[in-house]
């Protein structure tokens, strides 16, 4: 499930103004569920128009994702980076920031993890793994903090910065892997780095006897831990309270002594940390090295994940599972039913589109109800 880099608008480049969609738009799961159902219906029309049976295609899609224990573990492998990248988008959203850069934060986390993992390959696991973990999280955090800093200090719209950063990382990776310091002489068919040390590799958590050939790795525990951390941070710590206050009312927060500028930088760094962790897990759990075309657009799908999951921990986990299932099931559907796996991109786009229209209408109508009378009679 690939997608394209997104975006660039530009608010007035002055004080760090933050956007509104962090409001508690819809209550309950009605809107997300409805948007998925609607999107599936639109997708069915496309399948029908191209001369296939939509019911059969969706059955194949479902079987591909959940048809066997092995399929389920493959779906979970797709889900893990989506959860983490989704958290990266959501932390920013909660602070009133639109992080389009989860993709590049993930990639740079992967590069850092891959570089450290390969450079110190001989170290024992209990030394190497923490180093790789720190490298992945730190690189993502630092990279994202640049966007936060530019917003806080120079008023640069973070949407522009993070989009541009996405492309910068792609080309830097080309260089690193094609003829730069990370290029490995005899790697895969595509430009790639040397493999990381065995000590940094995440173990497979299900015995081969139970689910033959499964690749499901311990990264799933890191992902679950990250969801808990996300919840605890935002709703059980003063910092999380401050981030939410900035996201929902930056000026009120500022006069109360919560400086939005520092919180913006911190929020972006945390977001980048989550995304960097996603990249690090893909390296240590799945590929064991970095290569060109390393991410299939997880950072972009993450935006849909965060919005569909309403920036809540459980919602993000469920939305990531849904898109993980699409990613896994789509390829099976293409093989079995002859329906292009790209169908799931169409479905994802419709989901996003419906949510975009719906939630903003809600936010706006709520806001109008609130604000109009005062303005009107002033």
């Amino acid at each position, binding site marked *: 499930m690939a997608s394209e880099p997104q*975006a660039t*608008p*530009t608010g007035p480049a002055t004080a760090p103004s933050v956007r509104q969609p962090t409001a508690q738009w819809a209550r309950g799961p009605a809107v997300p569920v409805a948007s998925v159902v609607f999107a599936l219906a639109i997708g069915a029309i496309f399948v029908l128009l*191209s001369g296939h049976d939509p019911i059969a295609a969706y059955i194949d899609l479902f079987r591909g994702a959940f048809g066997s224990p092995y399929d389920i573990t493959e779906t979970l492998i797709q889900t893990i980076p989506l959860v983490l990248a989704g958290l990266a988008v959501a932390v920013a959203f909660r602070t009133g920031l639109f992080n389009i850069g989860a993709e590049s934060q993930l990639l740079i986390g992967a590069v850092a993890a891959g570089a450290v993992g390969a450079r110190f390959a001989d170290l024992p696991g209990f030394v190497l793994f923490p180093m790789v973990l720190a490298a992945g999280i730190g690189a993502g955090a630092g990279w994202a903090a640049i966007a936060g800093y530019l917003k806080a200090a120079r008023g640069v719209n973070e949407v522009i910065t993070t989009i541009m950063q996405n492309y910068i990382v792609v*080309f830097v990776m080309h260089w690193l892997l094609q003829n730069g310091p990370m290029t490995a002489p005899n790697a895969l068919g595509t430009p790639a780095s040397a493999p990381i040390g065995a000590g940094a590799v995440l173990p497979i958590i299900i015995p081969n006897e139970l689910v033959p050939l499964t690749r499901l790795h311990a990264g799933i525990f890191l992902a679950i831990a990250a969801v808990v951390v996300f919840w605890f941070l935002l709703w059980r710590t003063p910092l999380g309270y401050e981030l939410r206050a900035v996201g929902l009312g930056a000026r009120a927060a500022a006069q109360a002594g919560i400086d939005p500028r520092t919180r913006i930088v911190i929020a972006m760094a945390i977001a980048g940390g989550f995304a960097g962790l996603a990249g690090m897990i893909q390296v240590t759990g799945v590929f064991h090295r970095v290569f060109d075309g390393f991410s299939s657009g997880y950072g972009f799908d993450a935006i849909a994940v965060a919005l569909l999951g309403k920036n809540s921990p459980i919602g993000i986990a469920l939305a990531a599972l849904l898109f993980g299932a699409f990613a896994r099931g789509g390829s099976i559907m293409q093989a079995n039913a002859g329906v292009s796996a790209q169908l799931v991109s*169409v479905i994802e786009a419709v989901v996003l589109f419906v*949510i975009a229209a719906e939630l903003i209408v809600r936010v706006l109508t709520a806001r109008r109800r609130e604000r109009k009378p005062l303005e009107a009679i002033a």
Partner: protein
Amino acid sequence: MTIDQLIGAGVLAATLRLATPILLAALGGVVSERAGVVNIALEGCMLVGAFFGVVAADQSHSVVVALVAAMAVGAGLAAIHAVAAIHLRSDQIVSGMALNILALGLTSYLDYQFYGTTGTPSDLAGVPDIEIAPLAAVPFVGDVIAHQNAIVWAGLALVVLIQVFLFRTVPGLRLRAVGEHPRAAETVGIAVRQTRYWAVIASGMLAALGGAYLSLSVAHSFTDGMTGGRGFIGLAAMIFGRWTPVGALVASLIFGYGTALSFSLQGASIGDVRVPVQLLSTLPYVLTILAVAGFVGRSRPPAADGIPYETEGHA
């Protein structure tokens, strides 16, 4: 590394070629954002333009039909964004992003359904180059501009047209007013929403033309995701060019030159060090961040850019 690799006629001709799709997307961005709508779906508009241009060329064997079809589909995709941004007051980033994903999914899906794994037909009607015979013999200049594609020239003409339209005509004045202060525009009777619709649709057509250039002038085929983010470089060029057509042209040429260099310097080295040509490709993005941050000039968008406009009193 030689001088020829840096500023040879080949490099400059390539600069023009490479700048053209960026320029067309950037012009689309200028028109749309000057009216106050952020259209990041330009990338998607390019992609559908590239794909449906190929489909129409395949069906009709006519370049004109192909270009019209490409621009019509680009206009259609942009119209969806317009409805979302203007009528539904969606978040313009999310909406544009959804349409980019849709465009990528849809074109890849249809590409697979229409042409399977064999790829698009090889006998597509292509957009012709314009040969300027008198110039062809002129050294250097001839090599740079005597054999450029028709759409390259069209792009340059559009720069002039749109510059004049925006800053020297009444509809252009109104469009800028709508993008800067829609309430003020409305209070003097300008139809804000209508203006924005036309601007967004025009931006989709411009971007789609850029996409059709890629598939019908350059590649003579369609491959999935072939626009490769040029719509976004276009937006970068728009920002770097300070939301003016002429500025966008300059920015597109700079960005195009960076890419042309990265081709021409492939494998080149300074002393023993190989030139990291891939890093040249980061130029547009780095420059754009610096420009927006005010380190390189100051780039300020129209005041109402990206803000949905809500007519008063229709509560």
